[in-house]
């Protein structure tokens, strides 16, 4: 029981990272209507740019992380402007293949610059907090709290601001939104910036927990996709819930089965959701068909 609860705590911290990456994937899926495979590679870029500034240029870590996030937001936005925006009237198939191309380009750009060797952030080791016999590292606690804060802000933004209303209008019916005078281009651009930035944050947080390799983000593709379909496409709170479930399931599989079968557990979750509730646990609309 002790081990079980400890594993669940670790799973929540992993799930928080998955959520940060998944939310952008979900928003793009909802608004631009394709799975942007390259989205997860943005997380990798975030981690490596942060590493560059924090280690080589001796920038304080929080500042380096902000630079990393900004770099990712710029990269994601650039990919949108250069590639996806030009293809927006094409079928989803065309966009998803293009996104694989972008994904390859970005991942191997990282390999080209930083090599495929494992690297790590140079962060101090902190003693774990203990309560009631359980341990949680300050970094995990920070990851969880930061993610909750981000999702609270995101939820409020989407629900109560003009941007959020416009975004929902564009996602429900793009042409109607345009007729109604919603500046859809600006809204969509902002959505890409936010989604990419959050993926960058997710990559940096993952880099705190794990080693950096060019596959850092790629490993998140399946968990993030699983979180999106589990939570229901386009639902921000659903994505968070889905990601936490995926994080916990993956961590349990790693402990009770084999560490490398985390991917198999996540895959099994995807299969289950597609079989039983393709619209997601929290999604109401039949978006899967």
């Amino acid at each position, binding site marked *: 029981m002790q081990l079980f609860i400890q594993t669940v705590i670790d799973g929540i911290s992993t799930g928080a990272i998955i959520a940060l990456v998944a939310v952008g994937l979900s928003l793009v*899926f909802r608004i631009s209507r*394709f*799975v942007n*495979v390259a989205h997860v590679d943005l997380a990798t870029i975030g981690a490596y740019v942060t590493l560059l500034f924090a280690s080589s240029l001796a920038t304080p870590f929080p500042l380096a992380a902000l630079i990393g996030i900004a770099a990712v937001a710029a990269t994601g936005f650039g990919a949108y402007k250069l*590639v996806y925006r*030009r*293809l927006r009237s*094409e079928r*989803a*198939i*065309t*966009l*998803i*293949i*293009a996104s*694989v*191309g*972008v*994904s*390859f*380009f*970005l*991942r*191997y*750009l990282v*390999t*080209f610059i930083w*090599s*495929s060797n494992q690297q790590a952030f140079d962060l101090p080791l902190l003693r774990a907090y203990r309560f009631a016999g359980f341990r949680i590292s300050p970094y995990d606690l920070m990851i969880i709290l930061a993610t909750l804060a981000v999702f609270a802000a995101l939820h409020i933004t989407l629900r109560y601001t003009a941007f959020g209303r416009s975004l929902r209008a564009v996602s429900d019916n793009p042409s109607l939104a345009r007729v109604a005078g919603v500046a859809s281009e600006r809204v969509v651009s902002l959505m890409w910036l936010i989604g990419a930035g959050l993926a960058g944050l997710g990559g940096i947080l993952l880099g705190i927990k794990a080693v950096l390799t060019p596959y850092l983000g790629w490993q998140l*593709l*399946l968990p993030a*996709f699983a979180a999106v*379909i589990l939570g229901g496409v386009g639902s921000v709170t659903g994505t968070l819930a889905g990601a936490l479930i995926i994080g916990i399931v993956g961590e349990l599989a790693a402990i009770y089965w*084999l560490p*490398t*079968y985390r*991917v*198999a557990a*996540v*895959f099994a979750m*995807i*299969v289950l959701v*597609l*079989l039983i509730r*393709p619209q997601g646990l929290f999604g109401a609309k039949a978006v*899967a*068909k």
Partner: protein
Amino acid sequence: MISYLIAIAIIGLIYVLLGLALNLQWGQTGLINFGHVASFAIGAYTSGLLSLTGLPIPLAMAAGALLAGLAAWPLGRLTVTLKEDYLAITAIGFSEVVRSVLENEMWLTRGPSGVPGIPSLFAGLPATERGAAILAALVIAAAIVFLLLERLTRAPFGRALRAIRDNEMAAAALGKNIVSFKTRSLVLGAAIAGLAGAFYAHYLTFVSPEQFTPEVTFNVWIAVIVGGSGSNLGTILGTFLLILFLEGTRFLNDLGLALDGSQLGALRFMLIGAALVLCMLFRPSGLLPPSTRSG
């Protein structure tokens, strides 16, 4: 030099088989199979391991193709009714799971170190003749697959696949069983990829998990897309260009680029990624698009 050329031609023809298989699934049917390498791996491991137990190689290869096809069946049943994105990602998941099974199930696959000592095709011949004989067998196999697929393209089955690809709803309204057609296309393609894997195993006489990474899948994708999705001849042309590119870039350093091996590999995949994007932006139908009659 001659054995180098034979080696490249063998790998090239294995890629041709993989490309023809993907062209059936993607080019003809519109299925985004991003897990192609899984069928390749299943074919290679099945055939290799079975022949190690003493099964004659041709039977082992047939078993490899069969199992690769069977393994794709549940994937097809699960995803072909969903939006195309779901198949794409689920197929990636499928191939990652297959690879992690290869890495972990030591009792079956011997784990990360791989399976050495797989019986070679035409093992009785000296090295160069052996290569030439394997090449000849592959030429025959690829020709048979090519003719079979060309026939299929013109047969009612092929027309139904393209109808589904171009307008699923209309095809359904005409009474075509979409799920059945798509699943059969996926399974047949997977079996062909499995056959390619079997040739690979009995040519190299060694298989290991790191030979079956997602990069293989996307090498095949770029070959099919550049060549012309939907056209079997285009796929062969695309494969030829891919091999030319992969082999040609080995000599980039001779041009004065001082890159180490891993940087060169990375640059190669950056170019493949960029090529995929550029194809989608400027020439989605490829160099040799299918003629209007068959497309």
